[in-house]
């Protein structure tokens, strides 16, 4: 065998290993290939149109659990901050919408298609616009990376979906249920960490103090054990770990400066 052929064989083997990524030595190659084919079949892409349809249903469910604020001035302010961070790396195929939920529960939610919510309880714990920007940017990160949609794609319901046309009626409702459950019970640790990184990037890129998200998460830690933050703690990775990681990213990426806008926040969020 020539050197080139040997190198080609090695590359081919590497590519095959990469594709299969077999963790269980006992499992036969055929089983692994069959499983990979099943996963590929199950992970049918979801079009933007269907993503928005699913997102609308999940947003309606969120708005059904907690009433959406009718405070127009506050909604306008939250939308302005949200659009400021969303515009840093916008998805060209969706429009972002932001709203406040009237509940003392401390949390924020991102439904697919760009429907983003922050609770009154969370706003009450924030000290500045940079903190709000950090939280909304984190949620924009979830939307941009399609974290909830990817959970839905792995669901049992999607095994029955053969094309985009099947995503309607009862199937659509089931997918909305899967997405709503994922949002309220918590996304994976990896998804949360990725949204943290993106949130930091978007907020900092917009000109905000990159420490906003970390400051808010760190403050939540001081309220651990209190009722309104219990759901947040049950659905997100440990705050101290997230804060430490956010600081490390900011240091590594040389992120610094930026505005905090505490006074503007105080004037707009009463």
């Amino acid at each position, binding site marked *: 065998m020539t050197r080139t052929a040997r190198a080609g064989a090695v590359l081919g083997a590497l590519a095959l290993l990469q594709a299969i990524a077999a963790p269980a030595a006992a499992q036969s190659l055929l089983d692994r290939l069959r499983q990979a084919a099943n996963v590929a079949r199950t992970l049918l892409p979801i079009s933007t*149109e269907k993503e928005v349809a699913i997102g609308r249903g999940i947003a*309606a469910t969120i708005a059904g659990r907690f*009433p959406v604020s009718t405070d127009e001035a506050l909604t306008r302010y939250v939308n302005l901050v949200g659009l*400021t961070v969303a515009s840093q*790396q916008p998805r060209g195929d969706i*429009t972002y919408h932001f709203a406040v939920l009237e509940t003392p529960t401390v949390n924020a939610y991102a439904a697919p298609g760009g429907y983003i919510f922050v609770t009154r309880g969370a706003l009450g714990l924030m000290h500045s616009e940079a903190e709000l920007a950090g939280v909304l940017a984190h949620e924009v990160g979830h939307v941009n990376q399609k974290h909830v949609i990817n959970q839905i794609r792995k669901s049992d319901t999607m095994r029955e979906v053969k094309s985009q046309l099947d995503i309607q009626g009862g199937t659509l*409702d089931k997918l909305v249920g899967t997405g709503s459950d994922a949002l309220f019970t918590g996304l994976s640790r990896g998804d949360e960490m990725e949204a943290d990184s993106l949130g930091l990037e978007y907020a900092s890129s917009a*000109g905000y103090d990159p420490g906003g998200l970390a400051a808010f998460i760190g403050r939540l830690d001081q309220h651990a054990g209190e009722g309104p933050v219990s759901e947040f703690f049950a659905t997100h990775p440990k705050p101290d770990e997230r804060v430490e990681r956010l600081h490390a990213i900011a240091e590594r990426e040389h992120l610094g400066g*930026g505005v905090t806008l505490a006074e503007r926040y105080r004037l707009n969020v009463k």
Partner: protein
Amino acid sequence: MTRARGLARLLPALVALGLAPGAAVAQRAQWTDVVYVPGRWTGGRIAPGPDSLALVMRVDYFAAAPRWRAEMRRTTDGQTMGAAQILMGNGQSAVVVTQLGTTPLDQHALGRDTLVRALVVFDQSGQLKGPENGRITERSAGGKVLRVVFRRAVRNPSFDTALLDPGNRAGGRTLLASGIAAVGDQRSASVVATAGARGVDRVKTPGGEVPVTPDTMAVVRMERFTIGSVALEEFLRAGGLGAYAAPPDSSGRHP
């Protein structure tokens, strides 16, 4: 087989794995100029006003030298931004792109627009000028302020360089279709019309299943709540955000 020929045969595999040095794409650059002229918007016109600036245009630039693309949005009333006009170029050769095709800038009405001409400026090496952050004040020979440009570069541009090609079928579409320019000025009615999920009446939470009553009207209200791009621009300017943010400090740290 020579070593050179062997490497040549290996190259496709290396490219597929993203390991070949030649697989690197041209350096992307993306920046935004927000352009103001002296004066103040009053009743749809710019009236002279000392110490005030009126927003007239926002330009989003995308470049991978020598190719570049500029998406210009103008306001003619100080309230809303119009649809984007797209310029593309390869070095100093520029064309205006429409849904129907391209026209050389020199043969298009935009080519006689002083504001447009002022925004398509090249450096000594023939590359489009940019993207240093900061405030740029352009003055006439007599020292009078003509324009003030607030410039902000994107740190990690991720746009598709295929859209720098005027021949690309999608080239006539704006890159920032519904990201920022259309946040309030253009809603996607087709998407809203086809969305049909009602929501679900029970959800799992960390504390167990809870009943909910889906509120579709709240979602409709969210969709109808619009923020115009001019209002967003004013918000950014008041807060020193976006293009109005302070440039990197002397240590090179970016805000």
